[in-house]
């Protein structure tokens, strides 16, 4: 692969108003670490999944698995079925045959919001934020997925919890009231969600525009915001659908760093990407799809050497087939 990044990198980092390269995140993100099972176990298994739309076979007997704690790349030319694969995993489509198992549990056919509760979150290839919400609110929607308060709790706030010392309000009157009567779980979750969302925005590096409507954010911010929103649902498995689309090389570097940091928090990451450099640079293992079929699987080095993959990417006649 040719590497045109050098000259462009220089150009971009010198551009004054480019909000692209984000200062390294120095704050402490211990709060964002999630509890997960032992590393290396099979987390998600796509078990011989076939998906047909009428006569069109979108996925043909696709079989691979993701191990807990790894970064897996899912690559392939346009129309290879990568996003369809995502959609099967997140419950948008139900496979015609085969199963998807998450932590050993069959999830194919489960409703999307249930799948999210089980611990899978995703971003979208064509950004799908809630445009009329601020960046912070977008992330808070994600946080709400883990909150227990519902309509009754929000209306009557009768479920009280006892806050820890540092969570008590500053105002002396409120402080003593909170000590006596406790604080409603709704309020605690709302505050907690706000704090955690802010942390996440810092983590992905866009906290400076937290209160702006997401539709007004620059493109790179929107992409990062989608990642923050997905992380807010505390997914064991985070699926990124072409997160680097439209990014320049400097931004791609940042993104690779971000993906590694996400893994360090305890998330398992699945990345769909076109950009071979990014995929080879960040993933532990790669699965290659073409025309709805898996054509290769292995470490980045193996995949990069695989003649079938090279043929698929260069569009030459596939001799091996």
């Amino acid at each position: 692969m040719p590497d045109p990044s050098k000259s462009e990198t220089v150009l971009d980092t010198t551009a004054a108003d480019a909000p692209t390269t984000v200062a390294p995140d120095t704050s402490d993100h211990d709060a964002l670490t999630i509890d997960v099972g032992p590393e290396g176990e099979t987390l998600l298994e796509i078990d011989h999944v076939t998906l047909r739309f009428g006569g069109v076979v979108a996925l043909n007997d696709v079989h691979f698995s993701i191990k807990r704690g790894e970064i897996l790349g899912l690559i392939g030319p346009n129309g290879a079925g990568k996003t369809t694969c995502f959609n099967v995993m997140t419950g948008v489509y139900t496979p015609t045959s085969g199963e998807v198992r998450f932590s050993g549990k069959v999830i194919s056919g489960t409703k999307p919001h249930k799948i999210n509760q089980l611990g899978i979150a995703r971003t979208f290839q064509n950004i799908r934020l809630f445009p009329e919400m601020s960046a912070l609110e977008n992330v808070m929607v994600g946080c709400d997925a883990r909150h227990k308060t519902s309509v009754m709790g929000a209306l009557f706030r009768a479920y009280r919890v006892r806050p820890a010392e540092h969570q008590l309000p500053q105002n002396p009157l409120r402080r003593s009231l909170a000590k006596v009567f406790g604080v409603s779980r709704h309020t605690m979750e709302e505050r907690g969600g706000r704090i955690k969302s802010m942390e996440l925005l810092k983590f992905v590096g866009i906290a400076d525009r937290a209160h702006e409507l997401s539709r007004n954010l620059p493109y790179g911010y929107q992409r990062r915001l989608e990642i923050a929103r997905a992380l807010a649902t505390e997914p064991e498995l985070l699926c990124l659908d072409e997160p680097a689309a439209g990014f320049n090389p400097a931004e791609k570097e940042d993104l690779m760093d971000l993906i590694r940091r996400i893994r360090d928090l305890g998330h398992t990451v699945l990345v769909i990407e076109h950009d071979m450099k990014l995929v080879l640079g960040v993933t532990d293992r790669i699965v290659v799809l073409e025309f709805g079929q898996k054509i290769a699987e292995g470490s980045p080095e193996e995949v990069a050497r695989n003649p079938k993959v090279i043929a698929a990417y260069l569009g030459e006649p596939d001799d091996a087939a």
Partner: protein
Amino acid sequence: MSQILDAYRGLKLRDRMSGAPGWVRKVGMLLVIAFAFYLPFLNILPFAYIRTDLTSSGSDWASVLFLVVVYMIVAVGLNVVIGFAGLLDLGYVGFYALGAYSVALFGSPSSPVVEAIQNRFGLDETWAVPFVMCIPIAIVMALIAGVTLGAPTLRLRGDYLAIVTLGFGEIIRITARNLDNVTNGATGISGVPVPPGPEIDGRSFFNTIDAERWYWLALSILILIIFLAFRLEHSRVGRAWLAIREDEDAAAIMGVAAFKFKLWAFAIGASVGGIAGLLFGSKQQYVEPNAFMVNLSFLFVAMVVIGGSGNIYGVLLGAFLLTYLPERFREFQEWRPFAFGVALVVVMILRPQGLVPSRRRAREFEDRKVEAEEAAADA
């Protein structure tokens, strides 16, 4: 029309309000509430011209105020369905009727239901379910109806939902008219109970003469409901509704249980409608099916969309205008529906986001307009 509205916009009342310090807003709110409670006795010129009983043929001012507030309750409840959750409910009168009929069927000593209970348990002829117990009955009845109607239909496309709910409103009315042995049919039920209260001048506290007491009661309930509606709007529930409105699929993938929250919106709207109906039936002390014609549903929806769906202050204004104006200009009573229809078309064409839209809604409309213009330019 738009000049007037522009002038109004120039005031930027909303910006001034939100810019003011917290205590100013609180005091301002208290003053507004105090003024609202004082309204039945408003007699200072020139403000007294807003009264509806200046001529002998006018309607009783306090009763009009009561109706305005009951419809405001309706509007706030329907706003949860239309404005927050984005579901068009054209059968809201059904829930309103259910609330009124619940208090009548269980609270009136002369209702067939109560008579059946009297006979079954050998109770006294004056026995009936006490008013206070009728409140939860009304709420639960409306809630059950809301969930039963919503559960199968909320998965449908928006405009289908509109028609199904429209049918529901009619079914409730037709059922009330035809189930003679339960609802007394077209005759209706009299002797609907009133809230308990101390006797004054030999009359019960809530009676047919002193309408201002009914008004105060309704106003207190309205304030409570508005308070709860704000709580909902600024909670995870409000966020979930907004997320569903903006992108339902993305919301579901982010863990928002879209169907559950839509059903909640429907159920909350239904029970608020039930409360409003209960107040109405109790004040009238008489309930009959013809009070719940389908036109009332249209009126309710019009209050929300003309006022500005999604904005509680907007829908309050909508409810006020559409209830007060026809009463103030009673001499044109026959022209009321015509004027209502014309107003509906004109306001929606000139200002589809409503008179006082929510900020978010206003922006959504602006975006769509730009998109439509761009599409037209492309073509």
